[in-house]
């Protein structure tokens, strides 16, 4: 399932865990778990879109204007890309 998901992610322009769950005929919770596994194994990186500020939000005068609903992005790491290349060749 991990390889299958990795291939799906490698092919995709965007990810929707709901769509992947439906496509792979698996419960959403399981797809989320597999994502976590791919992240912990170093094949994927997840970015919450939050800036790494030195200043805690509570002290930031611009906190209220900052990104409150972050958009997540997924990145295939070098390990993930290399593995995917070897898998698809």
């Amino acid at each position, binding site marked *: *399932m*991990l*390889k299958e998901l*990795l291939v799906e*992610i490698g092919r*995709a*322009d*965007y*990810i*929707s*865990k*709901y*769509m992947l*769950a*439906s496509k792979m005929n*698996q*419960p959403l*919770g*399981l797809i*989320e*778990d*597999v994502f*976590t*596994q791919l992240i*912990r*194994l170093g*094949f994927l990186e*997840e*970015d919450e*879109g*939050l*800036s*790494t*500020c030195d200043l805690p939000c509570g002290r930031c005068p*611009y906190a*209220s*204007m*900052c*990104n*409150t*609903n*972050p*958009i*997540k*992005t*997924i*990145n*295939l790491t070098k*390990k993930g890309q*290399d*593995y995917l290349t070897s898998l698809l060749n």
Partner: protein
Amino acid sequence: MGNTIALVGNPNSGKTTLFNALTGSNQHVGNWPGVTVERKEGEVRFRDKVYKVVDLPGTYSLGAFSEDEMVARDYILTGNPDVVINVVDATNLERNLYLTTQLLEMGVKVIVALNMVDEAESKEIYFDVKALSGRLGIPVIPTIACRRQGLDDLLAAASIKIDSAKNGQFAISYGESIDTKLITLKSYLSKSELAIPLNWLAIKVLEGEEYALRIIKEQEALQGSTDFRSFYEELAVHRDEYQLDIVDARYNFVNTIVKGTVSRPAEPKTTWTDKADDILTHKIWGLPIFAAIMLIVFQLTFAIGEDVLGESMAEGIEALGEIIKSGLVSISAPWWVTGFVTEGIIAGLGEIIGFIPLILVLYLLLGLLEDSGYMARAAYVMDNIMRAVGLQGKTFISMIVGFGCNVPGVMSTRTLENRKDRMIAILINPFMSCGAKIPIYLVFIAAFFPKHGGLVLFSIYFLGILMALIMAKIFSKTLFTGEVSHFIMELPPYRKPTLRNVIRNMWDNVSEFLVRAGTIILTVVSALWILAVLPVGVEAYGPESILGRVGSLIAPIFKPAGFGTWQAAVGLFSGIAAKEAVVATLGMVYAGVSEGAELVSTIRSVFTPLTAVAFMVMTLLYTPCAATIAMIKKETGSVKWATFAATYTFALGWLMAVLVFQIGSLLGFA
């Protein structure tokens, strides 16, 4: 003390509820040695025996990904619990059983507490508990910990398990190649005296887990064997493959267990989210739909904010101004106090506050879009365009943030790892029309384009994005060349926006606006008012005042753009301090042009529709506010780039304003 029961489970599986239900008040809390993870222990009496219960931290796995995982792993391996109760969330069985497989790999005595079965049943998920237990080879006890149901059965099963022999050898096939390697590895490991289960250790070595590799490194007998070393080196070559295959095998095992033992309602193949995404993220239609949605947002902003709420707000401020003025006159306040309050504060700040209803409605609508999950789709739709100009789609996220305020917009570029992407994203962020610029557009729209406000505002935002893309393309071809890094966006499911979130988002933005109006803008307006009435003896707000003279020096720069008056020049330059100050300054300096008239009608008398457009274009593109420049300096770590950002945006704003005016004049627009 009697036997020890360890509780282990995923976060939110109800493990702590079960711990509390079992131990009641007989518990104490401490810390695991060397870490900050909480250690909870308690006691439970069952059939005249007292058991020690240890609540291990919630974890999804037994590796080294977090302190919680390590604490749970180490305790099970070396803490010698007599039995492990694996608390499993019955509503999310597949995910939870992954941990169960790892416990079985460890060879410890395990019982599954199938918790929250009531919630599962409410979701029409039913279990064949006997079959599930049979397939796992361990007892499975349904529980509802919050109602203390199933606890006796669980403790009875635990006491039997404690007295029984260890679990039989648990075997998952990880595939022929891995299975063979495991057998070889275990035969090597059996030559060393190890206190931890060999099967588990061998699997972890193949997975490349640091903890296991360290144990192998410490085994002198193994390290001294040439055969082992060459075998071990070969393992390392295929580690990525093994990692995926082992985890996959666990999931396949779980799938096999679940199939035939769990029944749940079929999930629809296509959800309405999928259907909506087919349209909203369509390669061709996605972008026009995004544009249409934004146009509707701006049209609604004017329809509700201006037509419904705006007029009453303006009337209210006017009435308040009259009351304050009469009050000051009745108490014979000095001329400068009356002048400062009526022509400085009320004419200046009042103009800005008059636009609050519009801003409220705009942020309400943007908040609805954001909370519904659509903004992620918008970022995705923009992705192809961003890539075409040499940027990754994620850059658009910082641009969306910039629509609120450029300062966090610039800050949010920190999430871009690639320097090229980051530098370009920082340099184009000021073209994102921030909330502070809205009152400027609104004044000019109210003066010249009241019937097409939504369309004009939409065009301004669109022009800002277009200029940002053009400059990004130029920068990526000249100053910052390099490859576009590839990111994949995650689209969250659509949600029903919650009133609380939307109202909070709206209030956050508007309150920030009001705070700035009461601080920075008040300071700027006060300073400019002093300059506008000095030196004593000259006409206040006239060209001979200090402000008038300074403005007159700058004004010729803007003559080719059609708005070469000292008032417009002063207004624009006050915007470098803070963009909200532009309207406040215009309100104050134009108060001297036609006393008593409101700013909109004064603007109508000194600008033309064409010069108004040129002024709005200049406002959109020219030098960002001081706070944004300071943030650019901080984020780029360079005064040079901050200066570049301040000057190139000014030059571009001026050039575009001149082009608008000159081409418009040639085409016969006035």
